[in-house]
Protein backbone atom coordinates (compact mmCIF):
# COMPACT_ATOMS: atom_id res chain seq x y z
CA UNK A 1 0.00 0.00 0.00
CA UNK A 2 2.91 2.30 0.68
CA UNK A 3 3.58 2.16 -3.06
CA UNK A 4 0.52 4.29 -3.87
CA UNK A 5 2.28 7.51 -2.91
CA UNK A 6 5.40 6.79 -4.92
CA UNK A 7 6.20 8.37 -8.27
CA UNK A 8 8.04 5.35 -9.67
CA UNK A 9 6.86 2.46 -11.79
CA UNK A 10 6.70 -0.74 -9.73
CA UNK A 11 9.57 -2.35 -11.59
CA UNK A 12 11.88 0.56 -10.78
CA UNK A 13 10.64 0.75 -7.19
CA UNK A 14 11.27 -2.98 -6.84
CA UNK A 15 7.69 -3.66 -5.71
CA UNK A 16 6.85 -7.17 -6.92
CA UNK A 17 3.23 -7.11 -5.76
CA UNK A 18 2.31 -3.97 -7.67
CA UNK A 19 4.30 -5.14 -10.65
CA UNK A 20 2.14 -8.26 -10.69
CA UNK A 21 -1.04 -6.19 -10.36
CA UNK A 22 0.06 -3.97 -13.25
CA UNK A 23 0.91 -7.01 -15.36
CA UNK A 24 -2.52 -8.52 -14.75
CA UNK A 25 -4.23 -5.19 -15.47
CA UNK A 26 -2.33 -4.79 -18.74
CA UNK A 27 -2.98 -8.40 -19.71
CA UNK A 28 -6.69 -8.00 -19.09
CA UNK A 29 -6.75 -4.62 -20.80
CA UNK A 30 -4.98 -5.87 -23.90
CA UNK A 31 -7.25 -8.92 -24.09
CA UNK A 32 -10.35 -6.73 -23.86
CA UNK A 33 -8.84 -4.41 -26.48
CA UNK A 34 -8.28 -7.38 -28.78
CA UNK A 35 -11.89 -8.48 -28.33
CA UNK A 36 -13.14 -4.95 -29.01
CA UNK A 37 -10.80 -4.64 -31.97
CA UNK A 38 -12.08 -7.92 -33.39
CA UNK A 39 -15.66 -6.62 -33.31
CA UNK A 40 -14.73 -3.16 -34.54
CA UNK A 41 -12.70 -4.51 -37.43
CA UNK A 42 -15.53 -6.68 -38.72
CA UNK A 43 -18.04 -3.90 -38.23
CA UNK A 44 -15.93 -1.09 -39.68
CA UNK A 45 -14.77 -3.17 -42.65
CA UNK A 46 -18.37 -4.08 -43.35
CA UNK A 47 -19.49 -0.46 -43.28
CA UNK A 48 -16.57 0.53 -45.52
CA UNK A 49 -17.95 -1.97 -48.02
CA UNK A 50 -21.58 -0.90 -47.50
CA UNK A 51 -22.50 -4.07 -45.63
CA UNK A 52 -23.91 -4.46 -42.16
CA UNK A 53 -21.38 -6.91 -40.75
CA UNK A 54 -22.27 -9.14 -37.80
CA UNK A 55 -25.82 -8.33 -36.64
CA UNK A 56 -27.20 -11.56 -35.25
CA UNK A 57 -25.33 -12.30 -32.04
CA UNK A 58 -26.33 -9.59 -29.62
CA UNK A 59 -27.42 -6.07 -30.57
CA UNK A 60 -25.35 -4.91 -33.56
CA UNK A 61 -23.29 -8.08 -33.21
CA UNK A 62 -21.74 -6.90 -29.93
CA UNK A 63 -21.49 -10.46 -28.63
CA UNK A 64 -19.99 -11.77 -31.87
CA UNK A 65 -16.40 -11.92 -30.50
CA UNK A 66 -17.58 -14.09 -27.61
CA UNK A 67 -19.46 -16.37 -29.99
CA UNK A 68 -16.32 -16.59 -32.12
CA UNK A 69 -14.17 -17.38 -29.10
CA UNK A 70 -16.58 -20.12 -28.00
CA UNK A 71 -16.58 -21.60 -31.49
CA UNK A 72 -12.79 -21.60 -31.65
CA UNK A 73 -12.53 -23.23 -28.24
CA UNK A 74 -14.94 -26.01 -29.15
CA UNK A 75 -13.53 -26.64 -32.61
CA UNK A 76 -11.44 -29.71 -33.27
CA UNK A 77 -7.77 -28.89 -32.97
CA UNK A 78 -6.08 -30.64 -35.86
CA UNK A 79 -2.36 -31.35 -36.04
CA UNK A 80 -1.45 -32.57 -39.52
CA UNK A 81 0.02 -36.09 -39.55
CA UNK A 82 3.20 -35.05 -41.35
CA UNK A 83 3.72 -31.93 -39.26
CA UNK A 84 6.56 -31.48 -36.79
CA UNK A 85 4.48 -32.00 -33.65
CA UNK A 86 6.61 -30.15 -31.09
CA UNK A 87 7.42 -27.12 -33.22
CA UNK A 88 3.82 -26.97 -34.44
CA UNK A 89 2.76 -26.82 -30.80
CA UNK A 90 5.33 -24.20 -29.74
CA UNK A 91 4.98 -21.81 -32.71
CA UNK A 92 1.82 -19.92 -31.66
CA UNK A 93 3.20 -19.61 -28.13
CA UNK A 94 6.37 -17.90 -29.40
CA UNK A 95 4.31 -15.28 -31.18
CA UNK A 96 2.05 -14.75 -28.20
CA UNK A 97 4.95 -14.53 -25.74
CA UNK A 98 6.79 -12.00 -27.89
CA UNK A 99 3.66 -9.89 -28.38
CA UNK A 100 2.82 -9.72 -24.68
CA UNK A 101 6.35 -9.41 -23.24
CA UNK A 102 6.88 -5.99 -24.81
CA UNK A 103 4.12 -4.51 -22.63
CA UNK A 104 6.61 -4.60 -19.73
CA UNK A 105 8.01 -1.25 -20.83
CA UNK A 106 5.03 0.43 -22.50
CA UNK A 107 4.69 3.77 -20.67
CA UNK A 108 1.00 4.43 -20.05
CA UNK A 109 2.09 7.25 -17.75
CA UNK A 110 5.21 8.53 -15.96
CA UNK A 111 4.76 5.81 -13.35
CA UNK A 112 1.99 3.80 -15.01
CA UNK A 113 4.25 1.16 -16.53
CA UNK A 114 5.32 -2.23 -15.28
CA UNK A 115 8.92 -1.17 -15.42
CA UNK A 116 11.25 1.35 -16.93
CA UNK A 117 14.44 0.10 -18.49
CA UNK A 118 17.48 1.99 -19.58
CA UNK A 119 17.14 0.15 -22.90
CA UNK A 120 13.34 0.37 -23.14
CA UNK A 121 13.01 1.05 -26.86
CA UNK A 122 15.70 -1.49 -27.77
CA UNK A 123 13.88 -4.06 -25.65
CA UNK A 124 10.59 -3.33 -27.40
CA UNK A 125 12.07 -3.52 -30.88
CA UNK A 126 14.05 -6.66 -30.08
CA UNK A 127 11.30 -8.63 -28.42
CA UNK A 128 8.66 -7.61 -30.95
CA UNK A 129 11.02 -8.75 -33.71
CA UNK A 130 11.02 -12.20 -32.07
CA UNK A 131 7.37 -12.49 -33.08
CA UNK A 132 8.41 -13.37 -36.61
CA UNK A 133 10.00 -16.55 -35.26
CA UNK A 134 6.51 -17.76 -34.35
CA UNK A 135 5.33 -17.19 -37.92
CA UNK A 136 8.41 -18.78 -39.48
CA UNK A 137 8.35 -21.87 -37.27
CA UNK A 138 4.59 -22.25 -37.78
CA UNK A 139 5.05 -22.18 -41.52
CA UNK A 140 7.87 -24.69 -41.43
CA UNK A 141 6.29 -27.06 -38.91
CA UNK A 142 3.08 -27.35 -40.92
CA UNK A 143 5.06 -29.26 -43.55
CA UNK A 144 2.89 -27.91 -46.30
CA UNK A 145 3.54 -25.65 -49.27
CA UNK A 146 1.40 -22.62 -48.62
CA UNK A 147 2.48 -22.15 -45.00
CA UNK A 148 6.14 -22.54 -45.97
CA UNK A 149 5.89 -19.90 -48.68
CA UNK A 150 4.03 -17.65 -46.25
CA UNK A 151 6.75 -18.10 -43.65
CA UNK A 152 9.52 -17.37 -46.14
CA UNK A 153 7.77 -14.23 -47.34
CA UNK A 154 7.16 -13.12 -43.80
CA UNK A 155 10.77 -13.55 -42.68
CA UNK A 156 12.12 -11.71 -45.73
CA UNK A 157 9.61 -8.92 -45.21
CA UNK A 158 10.32 -8.54 -41.50
CA UNK A 159 14.08 -8.39 -41.95
CA UNK A 160 13.73 -5.78 -44.71
CA UNK A 161 11.35 -3.46 -42.92
CA UNK A 162 13.08 -3.75 -39.58
CA UNK A 163 16.04 -1.84 -41.03
CA UNK A 164 14.01 1.20 -42.08
CA UNK A 165 12.04 1.02 -38.83
CA UNK A 166 15.21 0.95 -36.72
CA UNK A 167 16.72 3.93 -38.53
CA UNK A 168 13.51 5.93 -38.08
CA UNK A 169 13.58 5.11 -34.37
CA UNK A 170 17.22 6.19 -34.10
CA UNK A 171 16.41 9.61 -35.56
CA UNK A 172 13.78 10.08 -32.84
CA UNK A 173 16.24 8.95 -30.17
CA UNK A 174 18.76 11.48 -31.46
CA UNK A 175 16.22 14.19 -30.72
CA UNK A 176 16.09 13.18 -27.07
CA UNK A 177 19.72 14.24 -26.67
CA UNK A 178 19.00 17.92 -27.38
CA UNK A 179 19.04 18.94 -23.74
CA UNK A 180 21.45 20.62 -21.32
CA UNK A 181 23.59 17.57 -20.63
CA UNK A 182 23.60 16.42 -24.27
CA UNK A 183 22.83 12.81 -23.40
CA UNK A 184 19.86 11.07 -24.93
CA UNK A 185 17.91 8.17 -23.53
CA UNK A 186 16.50 4.87 -24.71
CA UNK A 187 14.06 4.55 -21.84
CA UNK A 188 10.44 4.75 -22.98
CA UNK A 189 9.47 7.00 -20.09
CA UNK A 190 12.60 9.09 -20.65
CA UNK A 191 11.69 9.62 -24.31
CA UNK A 192 8.28 11.07 -23.42
CA UNK A 193 9.83 13.21 -20.68
CA UNK A 194 12.32 14.54 -23.26
CA UNK A 195 9.38 15.66 -25.41
CA UNK A 196 7.87 17.26 -22.33
CA UNK A 197 11.09 19.15 -21.60
CA UNK A 198 11.55 20.32 -25.19
CA UNK A 199 7.89 21.40 -25.38
CA UNK A 200 7.29 19.61 -28.65
CA UNK A 201 6.09 16.24 -29.87
CA UNK A 202 8.89 14.73 -31.89
CA UNK A 203 6.59 14.42 -34.89
CA UNK A 204 6.73 18.23 -35.17
CA UNK A 205 10.40 18.57 -34.23
CA UNK A 206 12.67 19.94 -37.00
CA UNK A 207 9.67 20.02 -39.33
CA UNK A 208 9.44 18.02 -41.56
CA UNK A 209 12.23 15.67 -40.37
CA UNK A 210 10.30 14.26 -37.43
CA UNK A 211 7.22 13.87 -39.59
CA UNK A 212 9.10 11.91 -42.26
CA UNK A 213 10.65 9.58 -39.70
CA UNK A 214 7.23 9.09 -38.14
CA UNK A 215 5.62 8.28 -41.49
CA UNK A 216 8.36 5.77 -42.27
CA UNK A 217 7.82 4.12 -38.91
CA UNK A 218 4.05 4.13 -39.43
CA UNK A 219 4.49 2.33 -42.77
CA UNK A 220 7.11 -0.10 -41.47
CA UNK A 221 5.02 -1.02 -38.46
CA UNK A 222 2.16 -2.13 -40.70
CA UNK A 223 4.63 -4.34 -42.54
CA UNK A 224 6.08 -5.63 -39.26
CA UNK A 225 2.68 -6.77 -38.04
CA UNK A 226 1.79 -8.44 -41.35
CA UNK A 227 -1.30 -6.34 -41.86
CA UNK A 228 -2.86 -5.22 -45.15
CA UNK A 229 -1.54 -3.91 -47.50
CA UNK A 230 1.59 -5.80 -46.43
CA UNK A 231 -0.12 -9.07 -45.47
CA UNK A 232 1.82 -11.12 -48.01
CA UNK A 233 2.39 -13.85 -45.42
CA UNK A 234 -1.31 -14.65 -45.35
CA UNK A 235 -2.43 -13.47 -48.77
CA UNK A 236 -5.60 -15.51 -49.12
CA UNK A 237 -5.85 -15.08 -52.89
CA UNK A 238 -2.39 -16.61 -53.32
CA UNK A 239 -1.63 -18.74 -50.27
CA UNK A 240 -5.05 -19.78 -48.89
CA UNK A 241 -4.29 -18.50 -45.39
CA UNK A 242 -0.50 -18.33 -45.52
CA UNK A 243 1.46 -19.45 -42.50
CA UNK A 244 -1.58 -20.50 -40.48
CA UNK A 245 -3.27 -22.56 -43.19
CA UNK A 246 -2.87 -25.80 -41.20
CA UNK A 247 -3.88 -24.29 -37.88
CA UNK A 248 -7.37 -24.55 -36.49
CA UNK A 249 -9.32 -23.92 -33.33
CA UNK A 250 -7.58 -22.58 -30.26
CA UNK A 251 -4.10 -22.55 -31.78
CA UNK A 252 -5.30 -20.41 -34.69
CA UNK A 253 -6.96 -18.00 -32.28
CA UNK A 254 -3.61 -17.65 -30.45
CA UNK A 255 -2.10 -16.38 -33.70
CA UNK A 256 -4.88 -13.83 -34.03
CA UNK A 257 -4.42 -12.74 -30.42
CA UNK A 258 -0.67 -12.36 -30.96
CA UNK A 259 -1.24 -10.36 -34.15
CA UNK A 260 -3.57 -7.87 -32.52
CA UNK A 261 -1.44 -7.60 -29.37
CA UNK A 262 1.58 -6.89 -31.57
CA UNK A 263 -0.40 -4.22 -33.43
CA UNK A 264 -1.20 -2.47 -30.16
CA UNK A 265 2.44 -2.79 -29.07
CA UNK A 266 3.95 -1.21 -32.20
CA UNK A 267 1.31 1.52 -32.15
CA UNK A 268 2.34 2.35 -28.60
CA UNK A 269 5.97 2.61 -29.74
CA UNK A 270 4.88 5.15 -32.36
CA UNK A 271 2.81 7.06 -29.80
CA UNK A 272 5.67 7.09 -27.30
CA UNK A 273 8.35 8.16 -29.73
CA UNK A 274 6.56 10.76 -31.82
CA UNK A 275 3.15 11.61 -30.40
CA UNK A 276 4.05 12.58 -26.87
CA UNK A 277 2.99 9.40 -25.09
CA UNK A 278 0.70 10.16 -22.17
CA UNK A 279 0.56 13.94 -22.67
CA UNK A 280 -2.71 15.58 -23.64
CA UNK A 281 -2.71 17.81 -26.74
CA UNK A 282 -0.84 21.14 -26.50
CA UNK A 283 0.51 20.54 -22.98
CA UNK A 284 2.66 23.70 -22.99
CA UNK A 285 -0.08 25.98 -24.36
CA UNK A 286 -3.15 24.72 -22.55
CA UNK A 287 -1.83 24.15 -19.03
CA UNK A 288 -2.83 25.45 -15.64
CA UNK A 289 -5.53 24.15 -13.28
CA UNK A 290 -8.49 25.15 -15.47
CA UNK A 291 -7.22 23.39 -18.57
CA UNK A 292 -6.11 20.40 -16.48
CA UNK A 293 -9.66 20.10 -15.21
CA UNK A 294 -11.16 20.40 -18.68
CA UNK A 295 -8.82 17.74 -20.05
CA UNK A 296 -9.56 15.47 -17.09
CA UNK A 297 -13.23 15.53 -18.11
CA UNK A 298 -12.45 13.87 -21.45
CA UNK A 299 -12.50 10.25 -20.21
CA UNK A 300 -15.94 10.77 -18.67
CA UNK A 301 -17.14 12.54 -21.82
CA UNK A 302 -15.90 9.69 -24.04
CA UNK A 303 -17.72 7.03 -22.09
CA UNK A 304 -20.76 9.30 -21.77
CA UNK A 305 -20.78 9.68 -25.55
CA UNK A 306 -20.54 5.93 -26.03
CA UNK A 307 -23.43 5.44 -23.59
CA UNK A 308 -25.48 8.03 -25.51
CA UNK A 309 -24.82 6.19 -28.78
CA UNK A 310 -25.87 2.93 -27.18
CA UNK A 311 -29.06 4.53 -25.81
CA UNK A 312 -29.76 5.88 -29.28
CA UNK A 313 -29.44 2.32 -30.53
CA UNK A 314 -32.00 1.20 -27.95
CA UNK A 315 -34.40 3.92 -29.05
CA UNK A 316 -33.97 3.14 -32.72
CA UNK A 317 -34.49 -0.58 -32.35
CA UNK A 318 -37.67 -1.85 -34.06
CA UNK A 319 -40.54 -2.21 -31.58
CA UNK A 320 -41.17 -5.86 -32.37
CA UNK A 321 -41.33 -8.48 -29.65
CA UNK A 322 -38.56 -10.33 -31.52
CA UNK A 323 -36.09 -7.59 -30.50
CA UNK A 324 -37.08 -7.45 -26.83
CA UNK A 325 -34.10 -9.33 -25.40
CA UNK A 326 -31.66 -7.48 -27.64
CA UNK A 327 -33.18 -4.18 -26.56
CA UNK A 328 -32.82 -5.05 -22.88
CA UNK A 329 -29.25 -6.23 -23.42
CA UNK A 330 -28.24 -3.06 -25.22
CA UNK A 331 -29.92 -0.94 -22.56
CA UNK A 332 -27.94 -2.73 -19.85
CA UNK A 333 -24.72 -2.23 -21.85
CA UNK A 334 -25.53 1.46 -22.27
CA UNK A 335 -26.29 1.77 -18.56
CA UNK A 336 -22.94 0.16 -17.72
CA UNK A 337 -21.13 2.61 -20.00
CA UNK A 338 -23.04 5.48 -18.41
CA UNK A 339 -22.10 4.23 -14.94
CA UNK A 340 -18.46 4.10 -15.96
CA UNK A 341 -18.75 7.67 -17.29
CA UNK A 342 -20.27 8.76 -14.00
CA UNK A 343 -17.48 7.09 -12.02
CA UNK A 344 -14.87 8.83 -14.16
CA UNK A 345 -16.66 12.14 -13.70
CA UNK A 346 -16.65 11.67 -9.93
CA UNK A 347 -12.93 10.85 -9.99
CA UNK A 348 -12.20 13.89 -12.15
CA UNK A 349 -14.04 16.19 -9.76
CA UNK A 350 -12.72 14.56 -6.58
CA UNK A 351 -9.12 14.78 -7.76
CA UNK A 352 -9.27 18.19 -9.43
CA UNK A 353 -6.75 19.75 -7.03
CA UNK A 354 -3.23 18.63 -7.86
CA UNK A 355 -2.33 18.39 -4.16
CA UNK A 356 -0.68 14.98 -4.26
CA UNK A 357 -3.54 13.26 -2.45
CA UNK A 358 -4.57 9.72 -3.42
CA UNK A 359 -7.62 11.02 -5.32
CA UNK A 360 -5.51 13.50 -7.29
CA UNK A 361 -2.90 10.85 -8.08
CA UNK A 362 -5.65 8.50 -9.22
CA UNK A 363 -7.21 11.16 -11.42
CA UNK A 364 -3.81 11.95 -12.95
CA UNK A 365 -3.21 8.27 -13.63
CA UNK A 366 -6.55 7.94 -15.40
CA UNK A 367 -5.73 10.99 -17.52
CA UNK A 368 -2.34 9.64 -18.55
CA UNK A 369 -3.69 6.22 -19.44
CA UNK A 370 -6.66 7.77 -21.25
CA UNK A 371 -4.60 9.98 -23.56
CA UNK A 372 -2.11 7.22 -24.26
CA UNK A 373 -4.83 4.69 -25.07
CA UNK A 374 -6.74 7.24 -27.18
CA UNK A 375 -3.69 7.83 -29.36
CA UNK A 376 -3.10 4.10 -29.70
CA UNK A 377 -6.78 3.62 -30.56
CA UNK A 378 -6.44 6.07 -33.46
CA UNK A 379 -3.68 3.86 -34.83
CA UNK A 380 -5.81 0.76 -34.38
CA UNK A 381 -8.56 2.41 -36.40
CA UNK A 382 -5.98 3.36 -39.05
CA UNK A 383 -4.99 -0.30 -39.31
CA UNK A 384 -8.60 -1.15 -40.22
CA UNK A 385 -8.82 1.80 -42.56
CA UNK A 386 -5.66 0.74 -44.42
CA UNK A 387 -7.05 -2.74 -44.80
CA UNK A 388 -10.27 -1.45 -46.30
CA UNK A 389 -8.58 1.04 -48.61
CA UNK A 390 -5.44 -0.35 -50.17
CA UNK A 391 -4.92 -3.40 -52.34
CA UNK A 392 -2.17 -5.83 -51.38
CA UNK A 393 1.36 -5.25 -52.61
CA UNK A 394 3.01 -7.68 -54.96
CA UNK A 395 6.01 -9.28 -53.28
CA UNK A 396 8.70 -7.75 -55.51
CA UNK A 397 7.05 -4.34 -55.12
CA UNK A 398 7.08 -4.83 -51.37
CA UNK A 399 10.81 -5.54 -51.39
CA UNK A 400 11.47 -2.62 -53.72
CA UNK A 401 9.60 -0.21 -51.48
CA UNK A 402 11.36 -1.52 -48.40
CA UNK A 403 14.92 -1.40 -49.68
CA UNK A 404 14.94 1.24 -52.38
CA UNK A 405 12.52 3.82 -51.00
CA UNK A 406 12.11 3.52 -47.23
CA UNK A 407 15.73 2.64 -46.38
CA UNK A 408 17.37 5.56 -48.28
CA UNK A 409 14.80 8.03 -47.00
CA UNK A 410 15.20 6.94 -43.39
CA UNK A 411 19.00 7.02 -43.71
CA UNK A 412 18.78 10.52 -45.17
CA UNK A 413 16.45 11.68 -42.42
CA UNK A 414 18.80 10.24 -39.81
CA UNK A 415 21.82 12.06 -41.24
CA UNK A 416 19.98 15.37 -41.68
CA UNK A 417 18.53 15.10 -38.17
CA UNK A 418 22.02 14.57 -36.75
CA UNK A 419 23.41 17.54 -38.69
CA UNK A 420 20.54 19.85 -37.71
CA UNK A 421 20.84 18.69 -34.11
CA UNK A 422 24.53 19.62 -34.03
CA UNK A 423 23.82 23.01 -35.63
CA UNK A 424 20.97 23.82 -33.25
CA UNK A 425 23.15 23.08 -30.26
Amino acid sequence: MSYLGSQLSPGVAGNQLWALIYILLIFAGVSVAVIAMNWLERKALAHFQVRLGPMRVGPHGLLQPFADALKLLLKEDIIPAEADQVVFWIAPLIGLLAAFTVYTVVPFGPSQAVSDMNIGILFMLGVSSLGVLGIVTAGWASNSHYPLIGALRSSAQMVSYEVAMGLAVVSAILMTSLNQSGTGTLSMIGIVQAQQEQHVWFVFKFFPLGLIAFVIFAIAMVAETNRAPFDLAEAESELTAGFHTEYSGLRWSLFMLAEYAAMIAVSSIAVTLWLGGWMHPFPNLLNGPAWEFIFSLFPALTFGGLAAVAFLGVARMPSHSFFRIQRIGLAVFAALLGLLALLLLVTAIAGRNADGSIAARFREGIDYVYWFVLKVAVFMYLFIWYRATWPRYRFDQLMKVGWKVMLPISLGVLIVTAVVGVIVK
Partner: protein
Amino acid sequence: MTPVATPFFFYFLSALAIISGVLVITRRNAVHSALALIVTLLAVSGLYLMLYAPFVAGVQIIVYAGGIMVLFLFVIMLVNLERTVKEHQFNRIWPAGVLAAAALLGLFVSVYVKGKTLFPEGDIPLPEASNTQQIAVMLYGNYMFAFEIASLLLLVAILGAVIMAKKRI
Protein backbone atom coordinates in the same frame (compact mmCIF):
# COMPACT_ATOMS: atom_id res chain seq x y z
CA MET B 1 17.09 -0.28 -6.63
CA THR B 2 17.19 -3.77 -5.20
CA PRO B 3 19.28 -6.16 -7.27
CA VAL B 4 17.41 -8.92 -9.05
CA ALA B 5 20.60 -10.86 -9.60
CA THR B 6 19.68 -13.72 -7.32
CA PRO B 7 21.58 -17.02 -7.58
CA PHE B 8 18.39 -18.75 -8.72
CA PHE B 9 18.23 -16.67 -11.91
CA PHE B 10 21.90 -17.22 -12.56
CA TYR B 11 21.70 -21.00 -12.28
CA PHE B 12 18.43 -21.13 -14.21
CA LEU B 13 19.75 -19.09 -17.13
CA SER B 14 23.07 -20.94 -17.16
CA ALA B 15 21.35 -24.32 -17.15
CA LEU B 16 19.05 -23.14 -19.93
CA ALA B 17 22.00 -21.93 -21.99
CA ILE B 18 23.99 -25.14 -21.48
CA ILE B 19 21.11 -27.57 -22.08
CA SER B 20 19.92 -25.83 -25.22
CA GLY B 21 23.54 -25.44 -26.32
CA VAL B 22 23.93 -29.21 -26.12
CA LEU B 23 20.66 -29.62 -28.00
CA VAL B 24 22.03 -27.45 -30.80
CA ILE B 25 24.69 -30.00 -31.63
CA THR B 26 22.78 -33.20 -30.84
CA ARG B 27 19.52 -32.52 -32.72
CA ARG B 28 19.59 -34.07 -36.18
CA ASN B 29 16.97 -31.71 -37.53
CA ALA B 30 18.58 -28.38 -38.43
CA VAL B 31 15.48 -26.35 -37.58
CA HIS B 32 15.37 -27.85 -34.09
CA SER B 33 19.03 -26.95 -33.70
CA ALA B 34 18.32 -23.39 -34.78
CA LEU B 35 15.45 -23.07 -32.29
CA ALA B 36 17.67 -24.42 -29.50
CA LEU B 37 20.32 -21.88 -30.52
CA ILE B 38 17.74 -19.10 -30.16
CA VAL B 39 16.99 -20.27 -26.61
CA THR B 40 20.74 -20.27 -25.87
CA LEU B 41 21.11 -16.73 -27.18
CA LEU B 42 18.16 -15.50 -25.14
CA ALA B 43 19.53 -17.15 -21.99
CA VAL B 44 22.91 -15.52 -22.59
CA SER B 45 21.21 -12.14 -23.02
CA GLY B 46 19.54 -12.77 -19.66
CA LEU B 47 22.99 -13.35 -18.18
CA TYR B 48 24.14 -10.02 -19.63
CA LEU B 49 21.21 -8.36 -17.89
CA MET B 50 22.35 -9.92 -14.63
CA LEU B 51 25.82 -8.46 -15.22
CA TYR B 52 24.16 -5.01 -15.38
CA ALA B 53 24.87 -4.67 -19.10
CA PRO B 54 21.37 -4.02 -20.46
CA PHE B 55 22.57 -2.53 -23.73
CA VAL B 56 24.54 -5.65 -24.65
CA ALA B 57 21.53 -7.76 -23.71
CA GLY B 58 19.20 -5.72 -25.89
CA VAL B 59 21.57 -5.79 -28.83
CA GLN B 60 22.01 -9.53 -28.37
CA ILE B 61 18.25 -10.01 -28.72
CA ILE B 62 17.87 -7.64 -31.69
CA VAL B 63 20.90 -8.74 -33.69
CA TYR B 64 21.23 -12.43 -32.92
CA ALA B 65 17.86 -13.75 -31.81
CA GLY B 66 15.79 -11.40 -33.96
CA GLY B 67 17.91 -10.80 -37.04
CA ILE B 68 20.51 -13.46 -37.67
CA MET B 69 18.46 -16.41 -36.48
CA VAL B 70 15.54 -15.43 -38.70
CA LEU B 71 17.92 -15.48 -41.66
CA PHE B 72 19.32 -18.82 -40.45
CA LEU B 73 15.84 -20.31 -40.38
CA PHE B 74 15.12 -18.75 -43.75
CA VAL B 75 18.11 -20.52 -45.29
CA ILE B 76 17.55 -23.82 -43.48
CA MET B 77 14.00 -23.99 -44.77
CA LEU B 78 15.24 -23.74 -48.33
CA VAL B 79 17.73 -26.59 -47.83
CA ASN B 80 16.69 -30.16 -48.39
CA LEU B 81 16.74 -31.56 -44.88
CA GLU B 82 16.17 -35.22 -45.70
CA ARG B 83 19.75 -35.76 -46.84
CA THR B 84 21.31 -34.13 -43.81
CA VAL B 85 19.29 -36.35 -41.48
CA LYS B 86 20.88 -39.47 -43.00
CA GLU B 87 24.45 -38.20 -42.85
CA HIS B 88 26.87 -38.80 -39.99
CA GLN B 89 26.34 -36.19 -37.35
CA PHE B 90 29.90 -36.09 -36.01
CA ASN B 91 33.01 -36.42 -38.11
CA ARG B 92 36.18 -38.32 -37.18
CA ILE B 93 38.13 -35.53 -35.56
CA TRP B 94 35.88 -35.46 -32.50
CA PRO B 95 38.80 -36.40 -30.18
CA ALA B 96 40.39 -33.06 -31.05
CA GLY B 97 37.13 -31.35 -30.08
CA VAL B 98 37.05 -33.20 -26.78
CA LEU B 99 40.67 -32.18 -26.14
CA ALA B 100 39.86 -28.52 -26.79
CA ALA B 101 36.81 -28.68 -24.54
CA ALA B 102 38.88 -30.29 -21.78
CA ALA B 103 41.48 -27.52 -22.08
CA LEU B 104 38.73 -24.91 -21.77
CA LEU B 105 37.32 -26.70 -18.74
CA GLY B 106 40.78 -26.71 -17.16
CA LEU B 107 41.05 -22.99 -17.77
CA PHE B 108 37.68 -22.37 -16.14
CA VAL B 109 38.56 -24.50 -13.14
CA SER B 110 41.89 -22.72 -12.66
CA VAL B 111 40.17 -19.33 -12.87
CA TYR B 112 37.58 -20.50 -10.37
CA VAL B 113 40.26 -21.74 -7.95
CA LYS B 114 42.53 -18.71 -8.27
CA GLY B 115 39.64 -16.26 -8.68
CA LYS B 116 40.55 -14.18 -5.63
CA THR B 117 44.01 -13.29 -6.87
CA LEU B 118 42.98 -12.67 -10.48
CA PHE B 119 40.18 -10.19 -9.95
CA PRO B 120 40.16 -6.98 -7.90
CA GLU B 121 38.39 -7.19 -4.58
CA GLY B 122 35.62 -4.97 -3.36
CA ASP B 123 32.32 -3.80 -4.80
CA ILE B 124 32.36 -3.02 -8.48
CA PRO B 125 30.32 0.05 -9.44
CA LEU B 126 27.29 -1.10 -11.43
CA PRO B 127 26.55 1.49 -14.10
CA GLU B 128 23.15 0.01 -14.88
CA ALA B 129 21.41 3.36 -15.28
CA SER B 130 24.04 4.83 -17.60
CA ASN B 131 25.35 1.69 -19.28
CA THR B 132 24.21 2.68 -22.78
CA GLN B 133 25.60 6.19 -22.45
CA GLN B 134 28.97 4.87 -21.27
CA ILE B 135 29.16 2.44 -24.18
CA ALA B 136 28.43 5.35 -26.53
CA VAL B 137 31.19 7.44 -24.95
CA MET B 138 33.63 4.54 -25.32
CA LEU B 139 32.67 3.71 -28.92
CA TYR B 140 32.53 7.26 -30.24
CA GLY B 141 35.30 8.62 -28.05
CA ASN B 142 38.14 6.31 -27.10
CA TYR B 143 37.65 3.69 -29.80
CA MET B 144 36.31 5.89 -32.59
CA PHE B 145 38.89 4.74 -35.14
CA ALA B 146 38.43 1.02 -34.50
CA PHE B 147 34.67 1.47 -34.61
CA GLU B 148 34.78 3.20 -37.98
CA ILE B 149 37.16 0.59 -39.38
CA ALA B 150 34.77 -2.15 -38.27
CA SER B 151 31.81 -0.46 -39.94
CA LEU B 152 33.85 -0.02 -43.12
CA LEU B 153 34.70 -3.71 -43.02
CA LEU B 154 31.01 -4.57 -42.78
CA LEU B 155 30.24 -2.29 -45.71
CA VAL B 156 32.89 -4.05 -47.80
CA ALA B 157 31.40 -7.41 -46.81
CA ILE B 158 27.92 -6.25 -47.88
CA LEU B 159 29.26 -5.01 -51.24
CA GLY B 160 31.12 -8.28 -51.73
CA ALA B 161 27.98 -10.30 -51.05
CA VAL B 162 26.01 -8.21 -53.55
CA ILE B 163 28.69 -8.55 -56.23
CA MET B 164 28.94 -12.31 -55.74
CA ALA B 165 25.18 -12.84 -55.76
CA LYS B 166 24.24 -10.57 -58.63
CA LYS B 167 25.12 -11.66 -62.16
CA ARG B 168 24.68 -8.29 -63.83
CA ILE B 169 25.42 -5.15 -61.87
